[in-house]
């Protein structure tokens, strides 16, 4: 049975570990902090797995439908009898799936960091931050109302900021942390306004009531769905604003600029936050409010779809040209999240139409596994090579056999080669796209081929290509592959990447809670698999050995290549807009107004006061007898007044 206290312990254990490390552990037992954090996460994961089992197989179903269960609800702030903010736990298929994903990946990352972060000066602090992040993420997915999700959303942003800027003595890390924080904060502004719009019209913050009121056709709903503001209905605006918040966190075009820079953080952090968990928060948010999007407001869903598919495509192209392996992975993350987004976008509510929703959640699950694996594998490579650049790598397959094998599995999974996990989820997404919008399907399948190409470009560049030249003679002797604590998570995640695809997701996670039977259609999957294989073959021919072919190719497509290499100048556009346009047109006039009008008025007052006091300060001569005579004259004057005027 579901026990409330056990469910509450899942998010609370990591935060206990955070508090303990922050208050005592950092000072008194820094070397044990890693084990403490890992153990708390291990218990958390076991609890989450138990809850998932109970929910999916024992208590979650009422009849044929998975129910939303609220095991805990506390009134937190009560403003009036009708308006209050609650803190609660909401269990439904997606939140249960997410707690499993978050605790599993976080556990793997905790375990991996025992080896990876060993010897770091701020080792204990690192585990403290990881605990804080895990707590925030779990709170986010379990939130039972939209305000609670917003609180945890910001907490996640803060812990992400702390972890990106972990090496705060590196200026680039500090800049990246600030960039991530500011860009996501900017997007969160949209989210907050969206929350206010939705909750104002629905009259509640609670998810269940909110969804119920905004999907039941009533006069009021009709009013806000048709009332027009700048060409769109109020409801559309609200939902699009909420989506902007989600797009900021999920690094959707054009708010993605922070994600590649966020790779300045330690690699396990990139695996946890910027690949598997935090960046899918946006997808989760749209999925959480999905009934409103799908039933009441399809135009907003179209926005989600186009943003998703364009991010997916652009990121895939950029990923082909990057040379920093973590940046390649960052763009591939963005591309895969784009997949999840447009998959939600093409979906509709209920039954067969909900295929996209289910596919999106499925892809979220499998992607978390293989992307965490890719990042951890890249971490092991970086640990070995001491560099992020592809040109310093090559020929590592003999030197790092376990990493090589697991990395290959993850690459096959993300490329969508059967029978690895990514194949199944990507297949569902392509089918959903095929049934609703052929243009989207076309872009998606092209992106799938590009994905296979750049992932195997990465793979061949790291593990094949030229022979590895250690940067010093002693490198070989002191350096084996990676320690066991780093290899075990790789193997576990590798196994998950192989078999996660066989989970019958259609029965468990669907838009309306009813089981959705998806027929596996071999004929349909021929084209995507062939295209992916083609991508792999091209990558193989280019990068298996050192050759000039990639360079010739790059020269042939000069404009496109330079554009993609420079990330299509989106960072430059941002800088142009902020520095040139915003600063010159808004900032400078405002500063001028502040300096000359506001300050000028104050300065005027001060000058007048100063002048007057300059005139009368002569009275304060410092001579005793002057004071005495003023006093005497004053007394005489008072006496006169009292005698002659006071009658």
């Amino acid at each position, binding site marked *: 049975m579901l026990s409330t206290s056990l469910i509450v312990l899942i998010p609370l254990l990591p935060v206990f570990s955070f508090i303990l490390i922050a208050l005592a552990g950092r000072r008194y037992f820094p070397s044990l902090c890693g084990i403490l954090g890992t153990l708390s996460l291990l218990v958390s994961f076991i609890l989450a797995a138990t809850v998932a089992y109970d929910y999916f197989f024992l208590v979650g179903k009422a009849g044929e439908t998975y129910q939303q269960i609220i095991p805990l609800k506390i009134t937190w702030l009560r403003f009036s009898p009708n308006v209050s903010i609650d803190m609660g736990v909401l269990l439904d298929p997606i939140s249960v799936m997410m707690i499993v994903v978050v605790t599993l990946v976080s556990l793997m990352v905790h375990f991996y960091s025992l080896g990876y972060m060993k010897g770091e000066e701020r080792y204990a602090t690192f585990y403290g931050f990881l605990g804080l992040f895990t707590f925030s993420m779990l709170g986010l997915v379990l939130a039972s109302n939209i305000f609670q999700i917003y609180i945890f959303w910001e907490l996640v942003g803060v812990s992400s900021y702390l972890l990106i800027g972990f090496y705060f003595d590196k200026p680039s890390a500090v800049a990246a942390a600030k960039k991530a924080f500011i860009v996501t904060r900017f997007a969160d502004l949209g989210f907050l306004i969206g929350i206010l719009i939705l909750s104002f019209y629905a009259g509640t913050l609670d998810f269940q009531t909110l969804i119920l009121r905004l999907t039941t056709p009533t006069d009021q709903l009709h009013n806000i769905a048709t009332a027009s503001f700048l060409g769109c209905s109020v409801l559309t605006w609200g939902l699009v604003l909420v989506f902007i918040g989600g797009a900021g966190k999920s690094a959707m075009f054009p708010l993605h600029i922070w994600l590649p820079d966020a790779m300045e953080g330690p690699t396990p952090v990139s695996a946890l936050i910027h690949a598997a968990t935090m960046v899918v928060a946006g997808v989760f948010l749209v999925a959480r409010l999905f009934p409103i999007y799908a039933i009441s407001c399809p135009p907003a869903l179209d926005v989600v779809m186009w943003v998703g598919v364009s991010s997916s495509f652009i990121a895939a192209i950029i990923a082909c040209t990057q040379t920093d392996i973590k940046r390649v992975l960052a763009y591939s993350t963005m591309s895969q999240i784009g997949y999840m987004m447009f998959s939600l976008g093409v979906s509709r509510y209920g039954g067969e139409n909900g295929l996209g929703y289910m596919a999106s959640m499925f892809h979220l699950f499998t992607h978390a596994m293989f992307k965490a694996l890719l990042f951890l594998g890249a971490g092991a490579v970086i640990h070995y090579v001491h560099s992020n650049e592809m040109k310093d790598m090559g020929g590592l397959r003999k030197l790092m056999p376990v990493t090589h094998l697991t990395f290959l599995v993850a690459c096959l999974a993300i490329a969508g080669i059967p029978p690895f996990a990514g194949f199944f989820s990507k297949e569902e997404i392509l089918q959903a796209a095929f049934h609703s919008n052929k243009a989207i399907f076309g872009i998606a399948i092209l992106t799938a081929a590009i994905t296979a190409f750049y992932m195997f470009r990465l793979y061949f560049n790291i593990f094949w290509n030229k022979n590895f030249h250690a940067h010093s003679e002693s490198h070989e002797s002191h350096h084996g592959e990676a320690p066991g604590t780093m290899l075990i998570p790789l193997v576990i995640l590798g196994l998950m990447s192989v078999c996660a695809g066989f989970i019958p997701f259609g029965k468990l996670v669907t838009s309306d809670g009813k089981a959705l039977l998806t027929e596996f259609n071999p004929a349909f999957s021929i084209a995507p698999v062939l295209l992916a294989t083609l991508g792999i073959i091209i990558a193989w021919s280019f990068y298996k050995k050192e050759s000039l072919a990639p360079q010739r190719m790059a020269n042939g497509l000069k404009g496109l290549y330079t554009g993609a290499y420079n990330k299509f100048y989106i960072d430059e556009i941002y800088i142009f807009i902020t520095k040139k346009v915003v600063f010159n047109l808004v900032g400078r006039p405002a500063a001028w107004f502040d300096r000359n009008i506001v300050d000028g008025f104050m300065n005027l007052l001060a000058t007048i006061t100063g002048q007057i006091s300059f005139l009368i*300060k002569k009275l*304060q*001569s*410092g*001579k*005793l*007898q002057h004071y*005495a*005579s003023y006093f*005497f004259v004053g007394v005489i004057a008072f006496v006169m007044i009292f005698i002659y005027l006071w009658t």
Partner: protein
Amino acid sequence: MYDIGLFHFLFVSCALFFIGVYGFLTRRNMITMLMSVELILNSVNINFIAFNKFLFPDKLDGLFFTIFIITIAAAEAAVAIAIIINLYRNYNTIDVEEANTMKY
């Protein structure tokens, strides 16, 4: 001959008071200023005695006050002379015009 009445006493007291005030405001020497202050105090004493004698001959309150004031004046003179000595040590003069640092 006239009897010496209240008016005469008040005249003397008033004259003494203004002589004291004039001295206080015009002299630069602090000892002289202190003496002027004593004059002012004594004019008040004369006032007290005179009013007591002519208006309430059966009471002694005015006399008490006068004795009080004389006592206090003695103490005050001691304090004032201590201040003057300090001033002299700091400025090498007891001219109040020189001690003018307490201004804007």
